């Protein structure tokens, strides 16, 4: 048997793989002052992969024996992940060049993780999903610990590693049980098998689903598996945290979306309430603990936990007749969240050059010292809280509407979400308050051009999506994965 491979379908992945090998080889031949050239090289590779992905728009291809699909859903997320990769590369350049870290290795590992992200939305097979997820996580463990001389960075890497390995083990166990029950690793086949008669193995199938969900809950830092996130985010280099909180988390969610809405959809009555509990506790705990934070990255870490709660909400609505709407709401929320979160981290990267402790108090007077950054940060914070005129409003609105349309438990969840949004306003606005109202030391802040560019771009995108939500919402591909 000689399986034919659709090389066009996997062209972005091939380009990325080639680039990361080239980056590693070129790096070892560069003299230390020129090591930063690894970044433009990586950027060229990601850009090439981006263009290759654009040629796949509208495609519907299958390769590797049905385990790898390139459909509109996959292409949408590939474009998204590659954009995030470019932004993180922008944020990384000055940070890693000035810190004298291992730059070549950093870009190599970052690209490996991006490769995993790009593979994730195409993986329609348990094994492929697992490989993608490990490819996202394994390099991320290393780059989280990249500030070797800082014990907090070591702690970040170690915690992330231990939790990551534990969750992988739990997930793999669940996957093996699912294979045992259904006799297949293909998500569509599993969906068909689980819809049929299981011959006394119904309970085992439910237990297996629970194991897999638990594994993913660790990855997306949902309560009660969220405790690693703040320490890891705080200790890791700030550009890495930006990557973890946006791309890595979104990758977890894409995997979860495919599993839940393709393979396990028939058992929605069982796992829907589980996700409802996840969602309520994740957003509430994240928001309540965020109220206590004095450090900017920890604040954003707890905020990202709370945001994961909003993203988990649409899962709880599966099986209430609004699957398509819930799916689209989850996808929209993930995309919008990533934009505003990346923007916020861009500003934090800029501020980290002045004060490495990154207390919220350090933002004082930013409005005078760096008006553009302060304005952008205000927009991101307002958007994360979900207040118009920002993209975050639409993200919350679509989730809210899906909840109301679902009725029953959906309405309760929507109400909890609104209450949480009001609570979150309190801590999100703490940073703008500090920047605008509190007097700080008067010293003009010089931020790297690329970082300012990213912040401005993200701020513009956040406003643009509010004015014209069709940019992201109502994409036809959003719900192609969901049947009927």
């Amino acid at each position, binding site marked *: 048997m*000689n399986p034919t491979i659709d090389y066009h379908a996997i062209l972005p992945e091939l380009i990325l793989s080639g680039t990361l*090998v080239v980056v*590693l*080889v070129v790096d*070892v*031949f560069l003299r230390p002052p020129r090591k930063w050239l690894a970044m433009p090289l990586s950027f060229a590779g990601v850009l090439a992969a981006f263009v290759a992905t654009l040629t796949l728009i509208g495609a519907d291809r299958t390769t590797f024996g049905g385990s790898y699909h390139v459909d509109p859903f996959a292409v949408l997320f590939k474009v998204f992940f590659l954009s995030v990769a470019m932004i993180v590369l922008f944020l990384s350049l000055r940070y890693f060049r000035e810190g004298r870290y291992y730059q070549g290795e950093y870009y190599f590992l970052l690209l490996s993780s991006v490769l995993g992200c790009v593979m994730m939305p195409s993986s329609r097979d348990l094994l492929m999903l697992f490989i993608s997820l490990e490819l996202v996580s394994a390099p991320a463990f290393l780059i989280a610990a990249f500030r070797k001389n800082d014990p907090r960075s070591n702690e970040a890497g170690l915690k992330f590693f231990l939790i990551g390995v534990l969750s992988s083990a739990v997930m793999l166990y669940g996957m093996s049980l699912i294979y045992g029950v259904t006799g297949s690793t293909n998500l569509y086949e599993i969906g068909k098998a689980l819809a049929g008669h299981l011959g006394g193995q119904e309970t085992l199938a439910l237990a297996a689903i629970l194991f897999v969900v638990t594994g993913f809950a660790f990855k997306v830092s949902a309560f009660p598996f969220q405790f690693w996130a703040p320490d890891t985010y705080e200790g890791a280099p700030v550009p890495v945290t930006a990557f973890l909180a946006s791309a890595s988390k979104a990758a977890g969610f894409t995997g979860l979306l495919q599993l839940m809405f393709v393979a396990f959809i028939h058992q929605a009555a069982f796992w829907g309430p589980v996700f409802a509990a996840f969602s309520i506790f994740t957003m509430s705990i994240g928001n309540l603990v965020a109220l206590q934070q004095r450090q900017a990255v920890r604040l954003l870490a707890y905020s990202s936990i709370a945001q994961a709660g909003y993203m988990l909400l649409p899962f709880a609505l599966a099986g209430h007749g609004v699957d398509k709407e819930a799916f689209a709401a989850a996808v929209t929320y993930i995309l919008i969240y990533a934009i505003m979160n990346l923007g916020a981290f861009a500003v934090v990267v800029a501020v980290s050059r002045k004060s490495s402790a990154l207390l919220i108090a350090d933002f004082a007077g930013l409005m005078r010292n760096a008006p553009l950054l302060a304005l952008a940060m205000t927009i991101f914070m307002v958007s994360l809280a979900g207040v118009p005129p920002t993209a975050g409003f639409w993200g919350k609105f679509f989730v809210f509407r899906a909840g109301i349309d679902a009725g029953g438990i959906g309405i309760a969840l929507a109400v909890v979400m609104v209450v949480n949004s009001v609570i979150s306003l309190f801590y999100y606005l703490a940073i703008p308050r500090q920047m605008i109202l509190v007097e700080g030391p008067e010293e003009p802040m010089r931020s790297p051009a690329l970082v300012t560019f990213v912040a401005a771009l993200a701020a513009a995108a956040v406003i643009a999506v509010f004015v014209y939500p069709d940019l992201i919402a109502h994409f036809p591909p959003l719900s192609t994965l969901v049947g009927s």
Partner: protein
Amino acid sequence: MLSQASAETYYQSYAVVLAVLAAGVLLVGVAFLAARLIAPHRPLPAKLTTYECGIDPVGQGWSQSQVRYYIYGFLFVIFDVEAVFLFPWARIFERLGYQAVVEMGIFIGILAVGLLYAWRKGVLKWV
């Protein structure tokens, strides 16, 4: 929910587990008791050292260990795994045609990049 008969067999299968458990506890208990009664009791300071035979340990347990063997071990494992993949491939690559040759070339090429990296980082030099 269980019927009378099936409940009985159900608890009987637990009885086997209990019996094995009891037998295990008994076995260990008897062995220890017998040793207490029969064995001669002659305490010596030498018996309290870490190893009763061999060389006395030198220094602390937290001393630094030689890391270069570790790196060599690493490189060895990489190429060991390569061999594991190469042997079955060598058995059948004629049947698979040129595609198999190219694929194995890519695989070995990636490992070669790893070796190149190790060489440039000075791992291969015995320091």
